[in-house]
């Protein structure tokens, strides 16, 4: 497997450090002073189990200072701080640099022979003692190779994940992971090098890192767990509009789908993964949201993009969409099976290159906004827990629709709109 190439000074610093038990890495640049202060406060709070463990905190820093241990205060075991030079290819839009930094942290952890690597978001929202304890417990005590977070977003948050990433990932790879693409996750030492190596061998340096896909498709089974994480990240879209964000995320997932077709075609249903930590208490819900702007976007798309959708979607789906455009806003409801079928058809069109991939993903945006309008209408009267139950129903519908995807994937010529 190809290895990630680091700058000479980073390699020298890694050699000076030698090895570590726990590597905590950030998937982006952060304020060094704040990071040092927070880490120095948190590590002593981890408890006696961590007293004998060697902890390294790494983060990308363009003007990398030299690594070194923080002064030993009151005899407590404080971490070693390791700012490293970001690699080429860690620029880009939205999630691409996050993935690049995650890969770099994993490669560093592998070079330091770490027993566990914890990757966190650069905003330090998840950097607290409880999170590190939970991750370490899941990996070191419960032998999980990969531990993903379960955030506690609001009903109207993380909708791309709720509507596309999570149910599609679950239907394909059979693992009930709520957030397959996350700022924060932890991997065991053996999985570090596999994740970093697989990512490095990908010729496209802008490809996103999907840890659960790697875990699900690896030749030797990797146990995947989840922990409840009370952290609220705000993904900086950097001025990108929804269409660009959706294109990057959905496009990357379709790319993975194409590359791992031999694996997910054999999987049926899904299995729950162990979850640790306490789910947050159900917060009070806000006022309902007006879904009319999203509905308007969907109707506009239906009127203008029919010639594009006709190349991707089957006739009965198009009829159903036309029927939906005639419904009044209060009755607008996109069935789960219809939405799952639409995304499957787009994934197939991606593979077959029915139209330009950039156009394909751009044409998905009005459909996604139609689903959002439907979802917002449904969950506005539900509590957050009830909305999660509603998501479970959505995910089951995606799994039930998988045979449709399989038949179209294997025999695309049987139906060609």
């Amino acid at each position, binding site marked *: 497997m190809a290895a990630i190439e680091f700058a000479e000074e980073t390699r020298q610093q890694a050699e000076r450090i030698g090895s570590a038990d726990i590597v905590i890495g950030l998937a982006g640049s952060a304020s060094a002073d704040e990071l040092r202060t927070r880490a120095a406060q948190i590590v002593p709070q981890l408890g006696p189990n961590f007293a004998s463990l060697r902890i390294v905190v790494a983060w990308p820093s363009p003007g990398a200072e030299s690594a070194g241990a923080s002064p030993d205060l009151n005899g407590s075991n404080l971490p070693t701080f390791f700012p490293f030079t970001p690699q080429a290819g860690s620029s880009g839009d939205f999630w691409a640099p996050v993935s690049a930094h995650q890969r770099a942290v994993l490669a560093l952890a592998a070079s330091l022979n770490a027993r566990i690597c914890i990757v966190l978001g650069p905003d330090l929202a998840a950097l607290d003692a409880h999170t590190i304890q939970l991750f370490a417990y899941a990996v070191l005590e419960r032998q999980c190779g990969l531990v993903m977070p379960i955030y506690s977003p609001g009903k109207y948050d993380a909708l791309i994940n709720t509507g596309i990433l999570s149910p599609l990932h679950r239907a394909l790879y059979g693992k009930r992971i709520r957030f397959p693409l996350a700022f924060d996750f932890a991997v065991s030492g053996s999985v570090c090098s596999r994740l970093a190596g697989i990512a490095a061998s990908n010729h496209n340096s802008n490809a996103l890192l999907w840890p659960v896909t790697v875990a699900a498709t690896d030749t030797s089974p990797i146990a995947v767990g989840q922990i409840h994480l009370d952290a609220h990240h705000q993904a900086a879209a950097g001025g990108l509009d929804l269409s660009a964000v959706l294109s990057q995320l959905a496009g990357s997932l379709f790319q993975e789908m194409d590359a791992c077709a031999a694996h997910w075609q054999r999987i049926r249903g899904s299995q729950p993964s162990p979850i640790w930590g306490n789910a947050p208490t159900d917060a009070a819900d806000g006022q309902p949201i007006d879904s009319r702007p999203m509905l308007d976007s969907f109707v506009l798309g239906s009127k203008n993009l029919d010639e594009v959708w006709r190349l991707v979607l089957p006739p009965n789906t198009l009829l159903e969409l036309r029927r939906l455009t005639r419904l009044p806003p209060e009755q607008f409801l996109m069935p789960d099976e219809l939405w799952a079928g639409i995304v499957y058809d787009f994934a197939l069109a991606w593979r077959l290159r029915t139209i330009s991939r950039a156009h394909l993903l751009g*044409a998905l945006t009005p459909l996604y906004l139609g689903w959002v309008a439907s979802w917002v209408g449904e969950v506005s009267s539900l509590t957050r827990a009830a909305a999660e139950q509603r998501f479970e129903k959505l995910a089951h519908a995606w799994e039930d629709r998988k045979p449709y995807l399989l038949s179209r994937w294997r025999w695309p010529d049987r139906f060609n709109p």
Partner: protein
Amino acid sequence: MWDQVKQSLFGSMGRAMESLARLLPGILAFIVALLLFLFIGWVLAWFVRRVLMALHFDERMSHGANTIAEWSPRLTPSQLVGRVVFWCFFTAGVMVGVSAFEAGSSENIVSGWILGYVPHIIGAAILLLAGNVLARYVSRSVLIAGVNLNLSYARLLSIGVRWMILVLTGAMVLDHLNLGSNIVELGFGILFGGIVLALALAVGLGSRDLVSRSLEREASRAIEEQQQPERIHHF
């Protein structure tokens, strides 16, 4: 007198048959040369496709944005290269066939004219193909971007862009073929300018209400978003 008429008729028929007989070897040589080059072109195109597939040419060309596959999604890059090879040999076959016709029939005028004009035809065909591909790609890009920006006149913009590119392409093709010359230039200028003027009038005057409503909607949405922070977070 009738004998003389008969003599003239038979004489002219004989001369016509003689001319045809003189042309026949050339025509046969043209057909044989064309068929031979078609066969060679087909074999080489197949071979080139196989070699490119073995070299993973399609995967290499599909990395990054704005690749060949984006412009012609139905044909893989290796298929495109194969087709180019085939049509190159077809063109070569036509030119060799014309030379063979010239050698076989001793007719220099036709072959000279055809050989001189073939490069223009090839150039015009390439221009036409490129213009059509560009028009389709750009118009669809404008349509999708316009819809995602909630522009109600996105389709109008897309059609206008497509026709502008097609008109420009048509004018360039005719100019390349040396057809029409001044008339084509004048016609193109009037038509192209007319399309641009029509679009400008449609946006500025004819669709004034539509555009102003659309802009007002966008502006009020922006103000509402400033007054009420965005409550939906897609990611």
